[in-house]
């Protein structure tokens, strides 16, 4: 049936077109199919990247179209790398990255392990747990500002209730010592379900026969956990860490809604700082250099990490 359809289509092709197509090599036909994608990739990714690299060596400002653009060499890079404020934003980003990933991995894995135990209503609880990641980050940031309100916020009330402190005596997003943790808590609340789902996929991919064999060998549950569960889930976990790491390195909306980068510059992550340089101060050349530095950092770290991930998978 399908053969006859192909034959009919071939017969319907005008002879001049058929002759032309027949004259093309497989490689040429492959290029014809791939070319639009490559063109799109070049136009949307590669050209802007090259253009950004070029701009990073200039003093160009997009809000001064009439001003003369000067070639400044490495000055933008030098300024960025010697700017203490930028190193502070890097530190804030590192703190955010480390703690969100650590907490999300531990809690996410624990939740996945519990859900995998198959109990009554486990599907219901899975749905409840994944709800936060279905919300918009801007909405989450906004309503957590209310939860963190010292006078009316539920978070402060709960902390006050259990610790006996006055709820209005501390401000999660207004105090230098607490604000970095405030953003970690919210991101963990929102994205732990994502890590949980990936871990759950890993746990469910482990054949039960391996556990049965281990039980025949009288391996304890503890031993089974460390020698079967953890190694077999590790590639999934590492993948989750990669995704969350890349996402949180460019974290913007959630933190802007929560703290706006404050108090002071305590929670000003690199992406927030970059946005301010590029689209509020309009220092386009400088911001381009900043973006290139961040790109190289993320790309470099991600490449090393992916190599490690491949090695783990090969084991």
């Amino acid at each position: 049936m399908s053969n006859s359809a192909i034959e009919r289509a071939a017969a319907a092709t005008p002879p001049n077109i058929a002759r032309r197509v027949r004259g093309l090599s497989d490689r040429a036909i492959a290029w014809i199919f791939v070319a639009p994608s490559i063109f799109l990739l070049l136009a949307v990714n590669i050209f802007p990247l090259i253009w950004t690299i070029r701009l990073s060596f200039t003093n160009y400002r997009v809000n001064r179209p009439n001003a003369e653009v000067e070639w400044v060499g490495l000055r933008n890079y030098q300024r960025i790398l010697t700017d203490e404020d930028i190193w502070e934003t890097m530190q804030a980003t590192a703190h955010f990255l480390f703690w969100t990933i650590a907490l999300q991995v531990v809690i996410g894995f624990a939740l996945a392990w519990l859900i995998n135990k198959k109990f009554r209503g486990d599907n219901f609880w899975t749905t409840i747990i994944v709800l936060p990641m279905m919300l918009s980050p801007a909405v989450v940031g906004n309503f957590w500002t209310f939860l963190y309100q010292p006078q009316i916020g539920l978070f402060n009330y709960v902390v006050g209730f259990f610790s006996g402190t006055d709820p209005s005596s501390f401000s999660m997003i207004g105090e230098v010592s607490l604000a970095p943790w405030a953003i970690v808590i919210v991101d963990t609340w929102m994205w732990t379900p994502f890590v949980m789902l990936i871990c759950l996929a890993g746990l469910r991919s482990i054949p039960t026969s391996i556990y049965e064999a281990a039980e025949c060998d009288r391996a304890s549950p503890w031993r089974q956990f460390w020698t079967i569960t953890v190694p077999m889930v590790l590639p999934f976990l590492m993948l989750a860490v990669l995704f969350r790491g890349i996402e949180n390195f460019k974290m913007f909306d959630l933190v802007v809604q929560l703290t706006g980068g404050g108090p002071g510059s305590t929670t000003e992550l690199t992406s927030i700082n970059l946005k301010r340089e590029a689209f509020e101060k309009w220092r386009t050349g400088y911001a381009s250099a900043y973006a290139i530095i961040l790109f190289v950092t993320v790309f470099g770290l991600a490449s090393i990490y992916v190599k490690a991930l491949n090695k783990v998978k090969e084991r």
Partner: protein
Amino acid sequence: MKTRIALMAAAVSAVICGAQSASADDLTLCWAAWDPANALVELSKDFEAESGHTMSFEFVPWPNFADRMLNELNSGGQLCDLMIGDSQWIGGSAESGHYIKLNDFFEAEGITMDDFIPATVTGYSEWPKGTPNYWALPAFGDVVGWTYRKDWFEMPELQAEFKDTYGRDLAVPETLDELKDIAEFFQGREIDGKTVYGAAIYTERGSEGITMGVTNALYNYGLTYGTPDEPYKLEGIVNAPEVAKGLEFYKALYDCCVPPGSSDWYMSENIDAYKSGQVALQMNFAFIWPGVEADPNVGGGKSGYFPNPAGPDGHFAQLGGQGISVVSYSDSQDAALEYIKWFAQPEIQAKWWELGGYSALKAVVEDPDFATSQPYAQTFLDSMAIVKDFWAEPSYASLLLAMQDRVHDYVIAGNGTAQEALDGLVEDWTEVFEDDGKM
């Protein structure tokens, strides 16, 4: 006969309507989303009826206003025909060609800047400052002032306690120190069974909030932007020891007397805190006063208004407000100019004030009945007489954000000293002006 007259009337009106629709434009006016914008929508209905043009409006909330509208202007967008842009945009918009120059138009239409409050002309229209080059018509006069709970101030037991404590009457403060005393007095006090706080002040970090607040202290402790001879001289001027004292004052006010959790507050948060009865004093732009008067909780005589109090080295208040400009990328520039001509008329300006817009036209504000026309009218006049504005340079955004960072870092986060914050600010501003080739 009657039929013939009716037919003729119909024909004439058809011709008039046809003529109108042939030249009618759909104008889009861009501004911030706030109470005065609603008043302008109301006012503009008269323009639509008179001119035959239709008006559309694009209002953006204040925290995103500059981002959104400067993006629009920088990209040569045609969304806005008329822009009521912030006063600090005037330098950049003039130099980048976003606004059309209005001198010839003003001259042709008999509009003179002498008819407007001088501070608003300098603040909203001129670039370079102090020169007769006009890029906007003063549209909305605004200034930072204070609102206070008059009903609380009049409570006999509070008056007595205040006098015992401070040795003077609980009354409108004349100096910043007196203001802090009052804020401290109310902080954490129980009034009508509720805990209340001293003052809601500007602390917002993301856009311009804390700068618009802290300058009300710094100006009165001696802050100037350069000197008359050296407009970009910063060292020893911006970071003078007395200016650092002004910054210390603002931090002390924040540390002692604000509601918990007010580390990122600007106009709307201050309004909410005041209207919900949380604070005795509120720092805010004058545009909120009509809304306060009309509020069922705090309006109707329960609130009073006073200008920013004096400091040891001067008596100033931060200028707000905006001018109205014609966007150079607009296809309807003639109709937009027609709107400005209409808006500049004294009777329209008088109606603007009635609806809640702060007219900058002298004919309106110097009217003998003006001062008593609203409970806040005199305070508005007094405040407009002491205004000072932030930089309006093309690089104002870089200058503003640097100040936001430095000041927030010291006042809210408590990092370093006031002197270090101002020294850092001078470094940042110097870098900006050096990049601009002005230093």
